[in-house]
């Protein structure tokens, strides 16, 4: 099975080259944010206020990690269900986000926004939190520490595995993959 290596943050060219069904290994800097952090970011956008992180080209990982044991960079850190971020994702893309990583289905508005703003949605393996934590080399809270597991974190990742679900061409692996194996 072919695996593409990509470097974060991403350019439009990087994103356009990715197709639904591609397996990728991500290295570089990505940001962790889930429900509560998204709510705050979008509230700032609506008030035209500056954001605590620069979104241009970034990959956002929907994760609320377990606490790190002494000596660990981060505790178990698998993806959370992405559908809860659907309401916020088109605005995140409009503000420059290039990719997001989670698990589970997205709504049509998100899929349309991925095409419009050139972005991709990827899934990491839900439930593989221990394995995925090993691919995160450094974790630092950069905004909203009071949110605990839901704070925004800057993550340095190395060969972080993910699969492209929705691409800039409007393809959806969840629909096409199931069609291929249905009987």
């Amino acid at each position, binding site marked *: *099975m072919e695996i593409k290596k990509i470097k974060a943050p991403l350019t439009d060219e990087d994103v356009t080259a990715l197709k639904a*069904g591609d*397996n990728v290994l991500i290295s570089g800097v990505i940001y962790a944010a889930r429900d509560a952090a998204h709510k705050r970011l979008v509230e700032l956008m609506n008030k035209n206020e500056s954001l605590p992180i620069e979104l241009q080209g970034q990959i956002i990982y929907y*994760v*609320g*990690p*377990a*606490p*790190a*044991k002494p000596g*660990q960079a981060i*505790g*178990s*850190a*698998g993806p*959370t*269900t992405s*559908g809860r971020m659907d309401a916020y994702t088109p605005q995140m893309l409009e503000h420059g986000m290039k990719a997001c990583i989670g*698990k*589970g*289905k997205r709504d049509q508005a998100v899929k349309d926004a991925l095409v419009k703003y050139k972005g991709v949605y990827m*899934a990491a*393996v*839900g*439930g*593989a*939190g*221990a*394995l*995925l*934590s*090993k691919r995160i080399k450094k974790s630092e809270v950069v905004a909203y520490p009071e949110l*605990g*597991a839901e704070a925004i974190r800057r993550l340095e990742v190395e060969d972080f*595995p993910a*699969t492209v679900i929705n691409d800039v061409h409007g393809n959806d*692996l*969840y629909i*096409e*993959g*199931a*069609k*291929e*194996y*249905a*009987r």
Partner: protein
Amino acid sequence: MRELAASVITENVDEMCQQANIYLPEDLFALIKKSLDTEESPVGKEVIKQLIENVEIAKNEKIPICQDTGFAVFFVEWGQEVHLTGGSLEEAINEGVRRGYEKGYLRKSIATDPLYERKNTGDNTPAVIYTDLVPGDKVKITFAPKGGGSENMSTVRMMKPSDGEEGVIDFVVNHCKDAGPNPCPPIVVGVGIGGTFEKVAMLAKKALLRPVGQPNPDKRFAELEQKLLKKINNLGVGPQGFGGSTFALAVHIETYPSHIASMAAAVNINCHASRHVERIL
């Protein structure tokens, strides 16, 4: 009358919280490994390989299998010959949860109120506790931490008796299809049939506690479990919903007598990390 100190409950609950979140039950792990041989999709195989490696990393490093270490759900079968001393059962369990989640570096995932404040309680309490009074002088505690992603993919339907077996099959299979990738497949599907609105939800939940793949003792329901498993896997959803032949590892049905006017049905789904431990005190 046998006496049992609340502190003994707390100590055991503390250990159970850590044990269940770090170590996957052996029966389930064996079934996941077996699915690697039968999975048809290369991407699906890759997912299963990652899940197997994940379980091994969690075990070796003593870290949780999944960052969502769940709502702490307890089923207590309390022998009526046992007298609890030195505190309440509820507080004894909650104190065990508090300690286990802190010591085990487990995520605290409980919000104070469901609608308005949603502030984290900070210690993963309160637990959800169900208590049955049973004959004897023993106490059996089952701990089944429940992650949000799979729990959100649960449902209850008050069906008509005339819907029959076909109706139940359509209900369960279509529900799994709609859930798709969200509950982190491969999944274990708990199905309740019969009883009342709240009873049937409990049946579906308790179905998930059975050793995985162990059939219902009633042959008719055991056959229905196999029929459902085949149909669910034939949807092609596969591991993580990426397409493949392993959407579910097992379907467990639990039943209860039904009102003449009703046929309640419920589905409760567990992800591949169908975590549960039990102890008899």
